[in-house]
């Protein structure tokens, strides 16, 4: 199947700062790509380049078969872009917002489309309410509905679930998967690891550089990490923090990530890590259990690696 997004070496500079540095992404039709990375890593900037809102300083490629630089204007018609910040008009009503979008995109049979959307959202009765008065979850539902109004073939969603309650998040992901099943291609940026696991593919970006792409399993397998859950039964939080520091100092340990009342301890050299485990378990009170590394463990490791490479 053909790639809906196929870009290579995308680069964007703001003054002396390189916000996005040589990012290559390929997403096939009907795929959901999770776009992950810390704040300021370049996710929004990359998405803006994909939908023609920013002109790349270097790189090339296509979106929906259209050149991202030359055909930026035509891409806009085919893409549904949900901005990171709520960008509908807070001083317009729900209905007015949808109507505006439908008009700008010249949606055929506009009234019916707007009514159908309102009904689908269950907002028919509140159609005259100002969009600014909606709660975070409702704003998100409305924003998603607005960018689906013109039946785009590609969705670019920038942190759509930030600040949204779990119920709305669950609905949101159900909707995204339903759309993808019908052939919609989706690129969604997020901070939530549980959401990352719902994506077909992941791309992790840090400091503008793409560190890894692939399915969750591929990303984990590729990392080469061996991970243990370490607990101190009956130990205090202070003791746990002390233990984390002590383990970080071990050469065999590459990453320590706190997980509630336990620690996730990972290393590259499985044999060396096993020796640490034996020593620690023998010396006292700790429980070590081997697990599959989580995405969090992998990403923390990736960021560390990138930092070490820079230094």
């Amino acid at each position, binding site marked *: 199947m053909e790639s809906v997004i196929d870009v290579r070496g995308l680069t964007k500079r703001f003054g002396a700062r390189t916000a996005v540095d040589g990012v290559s992404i390929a997403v096939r039709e009907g795929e959901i790509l999770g776009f992950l990375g810390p704040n300021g890593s370049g996710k929004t900037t990359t998405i803006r380049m994909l*939908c*023609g*809102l*920013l002109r790349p300083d270097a790189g090339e490629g296509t979106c929906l078969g259209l050149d991202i630089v030359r055909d930026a*204007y035509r891409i806009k018609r085919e893409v549904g*872009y949900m*901005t990171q910040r709520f*960008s509908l008009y807070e001083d317009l009503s729900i209905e007015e917002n949808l109507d505006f979008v439908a008009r*700008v995109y010249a949606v055929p049979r506009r009234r019916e489309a707007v009514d159908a959307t309102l009904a689908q959202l269950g907002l028919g009765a509140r159609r005259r309410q100002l969009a600014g008065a909606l709660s975070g979850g409702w704003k998100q539902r409305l924003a998603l509905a607005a960018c689906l109004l013109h039946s785009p073939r590609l969705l670019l969603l920038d942190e759509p679930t930030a600040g949204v309650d779990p119920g709305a998040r669950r609905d949101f992901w159900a909707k995204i998967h339903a759309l993808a099943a019908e052939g919609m291609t989706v690129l969604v940026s997020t901070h939530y690891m549980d959401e990352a696991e719902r994506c077909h593919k992941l791309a992790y970006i840090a400091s503008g550089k793409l560190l890894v792409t692939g399915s969750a399993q591929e990303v984990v397998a590729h990392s080469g990490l061996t991970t243990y859950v370490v607990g101190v039964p009956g130990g205090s939080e202070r003791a746990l923090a002390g233990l984390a520091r002590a383990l970080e100092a071990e050469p065999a340990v590459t990453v320590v990530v706190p997980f509630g009342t336990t620690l996730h301890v990972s290393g590259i050299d499985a044999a060396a890590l096993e020796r640490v485990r034996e020593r620690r378990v023998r010396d006292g009170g700790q429980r070590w259990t081997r697990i599959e590394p989580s995405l969090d463990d992998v990403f923390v490791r990736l960021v560390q690696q990138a930092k070490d490479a820079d230094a």
Partner: protein
Amino acid sequence: MSAFSLARFLAIARKEFVQMRRERLTFAMIVGVPILQLVLFGYAINTDPRNLPTAVVDHDRSAFSRSLVQAVVNTGYFRIVAAPDAEGDAERLLERGDVQFVVVVPPGFARALQRGERPAVLVAADATDPSATGNAIAALAALGGAALRHDLDGALAPLAPAPAPIEVRVHRRYNPEGVTQFNIVPGLLGVIMTMTMVMMTAFAMTRERERGTFESLLATPATPFEVMTGKIVPYIAVGFVQATIILGAAKALFAVPMLGSLALLFGCLALYIAALLALGFTISTVARSQLQAMQMTFFFFLPSMLLSGFMFPYRGMPGWAQALGEVFPLTHFLRIVRGVLLKGNGAAETWPHVWPIAAFMLVAGAVAMLRYRRTLD
């Protein structure tokens, strides 16, 4: 209540200073406005304008009439820019606003003077703006007594003593009673529009940017021109409502005469509003915040008001200030609105002031279009 902390206060004050310095436009306003005002008030504004353009129609063509014209020039208030043969030609110059005065020396002036018949010199003044003509007319009145006295020595010396040898008859045109409101109120129409129209459109876009809606708008297929015109047209309607209110008040409260065609006036008004809105849109593509948009609007508004001839007589300003004044749509609109309302001017007399407004609009619109694309980058 917690005690006042000097350290906290200083920290905040320091932060504010840094922010102020970063906001280059605020800085420009802080420094620029006083300088601008000093320059404009100090050098440009002259409520006693001299060298006012004058047309002379000399039907007599005698040594006496030439001497009289010289005396008129010597008052310092008049500068002869035309000497048409026919009074009709001079009238047209007055209507178009090319001259402020027409001086007519009647035929047989010299003879009548020598016979001691106190011939009348006719002076027609464009009194639309009373403050622009007041002093000049006063100087003319004094002229009746003083002028020609030295020409009448020798054999004609007995004629010299009072009463004055000639009579100066002044016709104040367009605003015979010199009612200041007749000049000010139509002018206010232009001034208020300048303020509100520019600011409203300037806000229309910066608001989008501040509220984050601009990105979505830019992601739609709407073109820059669509966005610009889409944002401008509703405000033209707003402008018409404003204009109707102001003109209604002008008639009801100040009894301002409305001699010309209101259709012509509203036609010009539409153009004037469009020019202002184009400028407002340009500002909104440059300004990063609503505060900046407001500041830029004032940056435009202030010189508009001072240099257009609204507050102070245009002809009282030095050449450079007049040249600068020509740039502002308000300058031209004032001439149009005063001309149409007070002089009953038609399309022909109005046209010379229409195209500069159109030119302004095209330039502002083009700049807005050039600026618009680059906005997210």
